[in-house]
């Protein structure tokens, strides 16, 4: 609705920055997104460091996925400036790979696993350049990294949820990006897939790439990530896991009532 109104009624100069924000892989200033009358994300600032692995956490409806989508321009923002490696989004797209939520696409679409991975190469292929052996080889390597090579010829609808998620990750790997943005990569996947995905993400970090993931399982935050950003419409905390992932911050984000439960969960999963 909002975008429609803006296009129809002449747009306000939203997101028109007055100055360079930062050279970091991802920097967000004053991001506000609103569905209807209530902001889903309000005035969010965020800075992601080179070679870090950041979890965006917060309760349901806190605006985690919305933040990611607004950063990528998939949903319109009411205010805010986004810079990726010191440049506006439009110029830095080749350096970004995105793994959407699994439920956001039509898995009945008539296509095979290998075709989905090849979609990650479309920037290189352009409109008409034919797919050559080296492209296919690269796609197979990416499938290898997520343990899905044997499924290359399968129709995507025949995969389990975890396998679908791995195919999405393989497509992101094929893009060869420097910044990986993932929306709930571990939601509803089996344990083997979760391990496979985290191994890939850690190897990306080892290569100096930067990873940001919307995450919902607090018990694994300490094991998987080095930085965390806790939000609940507004930003609650941001920083290295050791500092920001504290009981006090979680209480502020999740509310007092839930805090006790969360603490139990953390005792089980943590340390």
């Amino acid at each position, binding site marked *: *609705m909002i975008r429609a109104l803006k296009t129809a009624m002449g747009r306000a100069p939203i997101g028109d920055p007055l100055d360079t924000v930062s050279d970091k892989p991802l920097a967000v200033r004053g991001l506000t997104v609103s569905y209807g009358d209530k902001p889903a994300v309000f005035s969010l600032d965020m800075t992601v460091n080179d070679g870090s692995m950041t979890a965006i956490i917060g309760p349901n409806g806190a605006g985690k996925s919305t933040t990611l989508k607004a950063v990528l321009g998939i949903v319109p923002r009411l205010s805010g400036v986004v810079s990726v490696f010191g440049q506006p989004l439009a110029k830095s797209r080749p350096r970004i790979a*995105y793994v959407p939520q699994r439920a*956001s696409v039509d898995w009945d679409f008539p296509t095979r696993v290998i075709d989905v991975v090849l979609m990650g190469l479309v920037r290189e292929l352009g409109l008409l350049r034919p797919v050559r052996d080296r492209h296919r080889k690269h796609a197979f390597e990416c499938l290898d990294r997520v343990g899905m090579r044997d499924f290359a010829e399968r129709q995507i609808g025949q995969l389990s949820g975890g396998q679908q998620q791995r195919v999405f990750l393989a497509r992101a790997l094929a893009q060869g990006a420097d910044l990986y943005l993932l929306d709930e990569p571990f939601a509803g996947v089996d344990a083997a897939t979760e391990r496979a995905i985290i191994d890939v993400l850690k190897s990306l970090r080892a290569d100096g790439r930067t990873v940001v993931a919307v995450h919902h399982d607090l018990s694994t935050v300490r094991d998987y990530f080095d930085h965390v950003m806790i939000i609940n419409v507004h930003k609650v905390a941001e920083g290295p896991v050791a500092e920001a992932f504290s009981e006090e911050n979680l209480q502020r984000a999740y509310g007092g009532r839930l805090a006790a439960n969360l603490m139990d969960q953390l005792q089980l999963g943590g340390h």
Partner: protein
Amino acid sequence: MGGEFVMLSLVPILIGVLAAIACALPGNFLVLRRQALIGDAISHVVLPGIVVGFLLSGTVSSWAMMAGAAGAAIVAVLLIELVRRLGRIEPGAAMGVAFTALFAFGVLLLEQSDTSSVHLDVQHALYGNLESLIWVEARGWSSLLDPVALAGLPPELTRIAIVSLLMLVFTVVFWRPLKISTFDEGFARVLGMRTNLIGLGLVIMAAIAAVASFDAVGSIIVIAMFICPPAAARLMTNRLEAQVLWSVAFAVFSAVMGYVLAGYGPLWLGADDAVSAAGMIATVSGLVLALAALYGPHRRSTGASAEG
């Protein structure tokens, strides 16, 4: 026999086949995007379009009516988007509001300016008139090599041939953006694709196909050409490339069989006159879809869904 066939049936069959292909190509993506009914909406506004085209130009020339129909299709698409976005109305209902209002407007205009010549063309626009598109100059198969006879080919044939070619080029050139944005719009946007423009381009292509086909098969039967061959094709395969090829094959089959059954079927049954070829083409395409729905190897949705 050959001479009569070339003169009376060759051109209508060719036009039917080309129209079916021109509609089936964009139809594949419309069906996959759950926008099959955009074809419905567009084709209903062809009638008001040709009435306005007639009123503005004052002639019944086909170019004026084509222009009117194309204009109406664009107005319809804009109106649907406006209602959908500004009114926050779901797309089906937005289409329903837009095309019925435009259709009503067309009928009203028609009644206000009632002339027999236009009236004839209303039937024509709704039902199509494939049979009338004969090649008067043809004397036999040899006429295909005779420049004088070729010059007398109905202009509808040239027009639909150009439009089919356009659809083919569009599908091939924009294959990757169409495929990716249909499968995963969010990912397409992150790649920097203008998904809105791709969607709009597809709808405009469908509108061009509908307008170019309406004088052959009629504006309502065009919907069958958009939907039935691609829908049947979807049930035959799990690969988009193969699906598009299947849909073209089904389109060609429906057009040829429909024309033959309409023209010769009644004769075989002992009646004197042919029945509507356009109607028969739609009927055959429906039968093809029914068979695919009964026996197509991929008629069922594949097991695991993401909703889980």
